[in-house]
Structure formats: structure tokens, C-alpha cells
């Protein structure tokens, strides 16, 4: 099964398969998100379609975004750059392709399970137990392939991107098992407060220990390469990596500050949330110094443009995150649409945009041809930029209206008419995002297949 380092030129079939997987599920996930947005405007929207009501469309949207679009998109770039940085071939392209196929079997099973109402009812952990087990297997396969590639490396130094991608899959493989309580197949949950604590350790770590390190790994690879600049400091990047591992793992309980969980756990969560400023600023200072004076070059390269934009969203989402962990701020921002806006900036604005950038950056290298359409990629960029930024603005406003009203003792139903307009705006902005998703799918598909562009030397 293993391919030798001396084999013929790599064909990058694994990276190709993950690119296509990500593009397809982005379109699907955005479609479910659009359905959810429709329900928020008109609660009887599609009311007769039982398998697609809001309570089912929403987890389909969220889980497909996390595990269908963003994770495979970031892994697609990783499956390209890990062998390249280690000067060896991927341990097994066959295993990689098998993983991608199994990935695309797992997700429809999950969607059908949710449509049948077999949700485990825990936010970000709704997949049925059978799908949980398949996802654990998928992570095990990815870990095996990447770790074996690292073991066979010809380059002794492990570049920071590889640290990030390996940490992401290993830690998530572990936390997925624990956070989804896979030893209790019938419920996938504990009872009461302990379940909430465990769930939010997992829920926040899906972003913190999966999407964040995968995204940073792509940024650390793409931006120096696109600008032909050496990394400002590799030592600094390792400090950022280890501080993220230390700090990010324990902050999930900041979702539960209003809940009777142990105070020491809340304190850890708040302190570590604020301390997240350290790894975040270490990364941003490092990567922005690396590309200093070369913003024109970045914006001339569509992949780098997406990735750099993702780093700006990363800055915002983390500044927000540190702020939102403060109990005084949470009194206004928690349990309302502010948090939804925050999640969209993080998952789509940072990780999703970086994933698309990584795909667009590696596609010409793995196909040996230019992108099918630079224009479509640019169009997708602006659609997503307007969509995500608009989402952030609208949902932040809605969140402040809700938070302030509840702080003043208003009841929920009296606030709803006030925010209806914003839900319409939100759905309108969703049209930008869903359009971008389908345009991206077409562009990526045409780049991989039926691409009329002139062939160049394939790496």
C-alpha cells in the first residue's frame, strides 16, 4: 500500500479528492443554511416537510460546514504541502483516496440520520453514534497516513505547518471520542451538567483544535510561498504553536458561565480565553511581518488573497472570543445572535476562507494547469467577503438588540418583531454565500476536469 519516496512524480490524488469533497459539501451545507435562514423569516417555511424542519436543517448545515466543507478543504492543502515540506511522498495515496471516499459515504449517512430525527441533540455533536464512529475511523486513517509520512521524511526539520496539521488531527481524534461520549451509544451523552461541560470542551475544540491549527498550517505554507519570503521567525511560530496547544484546550467552559459548573473550571476557561491573545498575536505578527510590503503580490494571487483575508477574520474572531469570555461582556452578548455572528466569522470567515484559499493555491500545482477561471474565483472571493462581513454586521446588531432588551427585562416574543428585518437581511446575505459556494464548486470541478488551460510542469 505504501508508496515509496522514489516513486514517479506524485499524482496528488488524495489532495484532489479532498478538494472536490470540500467544494461539493460547501454547496450542500450552504443550501441547508439557506433553508434555515428561510425558517427564521417565516417559521412555517417548508412546514410540511418534516425531515427538513429547522431543528433538522440547522444541524445538517452546521455539521456539514464543519466536517464536509472546512475540514476536508484544509486537509486538501495539507495532503499537498505535508509531503512537499518533508521532501517525501505521501505514505499512501491509495489510503488517502479511500479516506476521501469513506468521508463522502459518512456524510450522507449523517445527513440521512439527522433527517430521520436520530440527532443526539447536543450542539455541534448531533451526528448519530454510527456516524461518530465512522468519523473516528476517518481521523484514524488521516492520522496514520500523515504520521507515517512524517516518519519517512527526508527533511529532518518539521516545519510549523506540519506541527499544526498533525496536532489538529491527533487532538481532534481524541477529543471527538471523549466529547461525543462514544462509550454510550444509546445516547452519546452523560447526564446533566457534566454532559454540558464535556460537550463544550468538545464543541469549542472543534474550532480551536481542528479548524484553527489546520487553518494556521495552510497560512504558514501559502503566504511565505506566494510572496517568495522566508517566514519571519520559525521560532516564533513554534512558540505560537505550543502556546495554542496549552491555552486553547481548556476554554470550552466559557460557554457555561451562567451554569452551575465548578468555579475553578470557569476561571480556567476565562483566563485561558483571554490568554488566547498570545498565540493569536504571535501568529499574526509572524505572518504579517512575513508578507510585509507584499500585499500587492498577495492580492494578485487568488489563493494567497483568500488566505490573507482569512488571517484578518482570524484576528477579529479571536479578539471577539477573548472579549466574550468576560462575564460582564457576556451579560450582553450571550444566548443571542452575537454568538451566531461570531461563529460565522470564525468558521466561514477564517477557516472556510483559508480552506478555499488553500484549495485555489494548490490546485494549479497538483493539476499542472491554471485555475479554470480566475474571474470566477475573484467573484467567489467578493461574494464571500460581502456575505461574511454582512453576516457579522447584521448578526452583531441583532445580538445587541436581543442582549440589551433581555438585560432590560423584555420578553423574547416582544423582541422578535424588532429583529425580523435583520433576519431578512441575513437571508439576503446568505444568497451571496450560497452563490459563492456553487461558483466555487463549478470552478474547482472544471479545474480538475475538462480544464482547457495550457498544461504547465506538474509538481
Amino acid at each position, binding site marked *: 500500500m505504501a508508496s515509496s519516496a522514489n516513486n514517479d512524480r506524485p499524482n496528488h490524488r488524495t489532495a484532489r479528492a479532498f478538494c472536490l469533497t470540500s467544494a461539493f459539501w460547501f454547496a450542500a451545507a450552504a443550501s441547508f443554511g439557506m433553508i434555515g435562514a428561510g425558517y427564521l423569516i417565516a417559521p412555517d417555511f417548508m412546514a410540511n416537510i418534516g425531515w427538513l424542519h429547522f431543528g433538522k436543517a440547522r444541524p445538517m448545515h452546521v455539521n456539514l460546514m464543519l466536517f464536509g466543507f472546512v475540514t476536508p478543504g484544509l486537509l486538501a492543502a495539507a495532503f499537498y504541502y505535508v509531503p512537499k515540506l518533508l*521532501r517525501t511522498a505521501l505514505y499512501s495515496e491509495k489510503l488517502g483516496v479511500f479516506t476521501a471516499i469513506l468521508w463522502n459515504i459518512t456524510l450522507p449517512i449523517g445527513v440521512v440520520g439527522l433527517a430521520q430525527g436520530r440527532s443526539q441533540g447536543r450542539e455541534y455533536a448531533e451526528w448519530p453514534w454510527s456516524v461518530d464512529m465512522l468519523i473516528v475511523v476517518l481521523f484514524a486513517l488521516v492520522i496514520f497516513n500523515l504520521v507515517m509520512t512524517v516518519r519517512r521524511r527526508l527533511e529532518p*526539520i518539521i*516545519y510549523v505547518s506540519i506541527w499544526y496539521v498533525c496536532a489538529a488531527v491527533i487532538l481532534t481524534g481524541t477529543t471527538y471520542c471523549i466529547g461525543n461520549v462514544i462509550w454510550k451509544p444509546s445516547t452519546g451523552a452523560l447526564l446533566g451538567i457534566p454532559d454540558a461541560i*464535556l460537550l463544550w470542551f468538545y464543541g469549542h475544540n472543534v474550532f480551536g483544535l481542528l479548524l484553527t491549527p489546520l487553518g494556521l498550517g495552510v497560512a504558514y505554507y501559502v503566504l511565505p*510561498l506566494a510572496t517568495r519570503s522566508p517566514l519571519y521567525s520559525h521560532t516564533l511560530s513554534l512558540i505560537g504553536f505550543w502556546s495554542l496547544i496549552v491555552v486553547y484546550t481548556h476554554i470550552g467552559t466559557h460557554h457555561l458561565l451562567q451554569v452551575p459548573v465548578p468555579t475553578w473550571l470557569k476561571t480556567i476557561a476565562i483566563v485561558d480565553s483571554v490568554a488566547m491573545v498570545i498565540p493569536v498575536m504571535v501568529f499574526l505578527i509572524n505572518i504579517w511581518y512575513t508578507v510585509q510590503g507584499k500585499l500587492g503580490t498577495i492580492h494578485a*494571487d487568488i489563493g494567497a488573497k483568500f488566505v490573507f483575508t482569512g488571517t484578518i477574520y482570524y484576528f*477579529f474572531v479571536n479578539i471577539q472570543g477573548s472579549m466574550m469570555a468576560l462575564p460582564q461582556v457576556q451579560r450582553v452578548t450571550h444566548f443571542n445572535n452575537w454568538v451566531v455572528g461570531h461563529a460565522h466569522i470564525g468558521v466561514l470567515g477564517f477557516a472556510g476562507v483559508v480552506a478555499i484559499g488553500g484549495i485555489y493555491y494548490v490546485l494549479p500545482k497538483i493539476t499542472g494547469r491554471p485555475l479554470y477561471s480566475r474571474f470566477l474565483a475573484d467573484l467567489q472571493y467578493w461574494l464571500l467577503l460581502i456575505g461574511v*462581513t454582512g453576516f457579522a454586521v447584521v448578526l*452583531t446588531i441583532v445580538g*445587541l438588540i436581543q442582549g440589551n432588551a433581555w438585560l432590560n427585562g423584555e420578553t423574547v416574543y416582544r423582541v422578535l418583531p424588532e429583529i425580523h428585518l435583520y433576519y431578512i437581511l441575513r437571508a439576503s446575505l446568505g444568497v451571496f454565500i450560497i452563490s459563492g459556494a456553487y461558483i466555487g464548486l463549478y470552478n474547482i470541478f472544471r479545474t480538475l476536469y475538462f480544464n482547457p488551460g495550457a498544461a504547465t510542469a506538474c509538481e
Partner: protein
Amino acid sequence: MYYPYFITYMLAGFVISVGVFIWALNNGQFKEQQRARFLPLEGELETQPVRGSRMGRLETYALFSLACCGLLASAAVLAFALWRAP
């Protein structure tokens, strides 16, 4: 019954991290940091970078403006929340 699960969770991450850190230390992963900076560029330097354009610069300014607006909005919310705090 509160503690075993999330202490196991925290310990699992901690033990894995410490183990890997010790391996990295012994494996020389914190040496040759100057060479490590250039690793992505190896085998790539012969290619000329893509040239910037006027449109690209305009996009840069637009993004920078967006970033400033977002930062100001975040600061305003923080100030508002602290002002409203009882």
C-alpha cells in the same frame, strides 16, 4: 461524577502534548530555526512572483478599511458592555 470525565479529557491532551514536546526536544526540532524559515521556498525560488496590480492595491485598502471598522465596532461593544454592566 463531575470530575473524572473532563479531568480525563484535560489529561489526555496534556499527556499527548508533553510526550510530543519531549520527543521534539530530543529529536532536534528546535535547532536549525534559520533554515526552517526557508523550508516552504525550497525548490520554488526559480518561479517569479505574480505581479501586483492597481486593483490589488485598491482591494488591500478596502480590506484594511473593513478591518478598522470591525476593530472600532468591537471596541464600541466592549465599552458599551462595560458601561452597561451593573
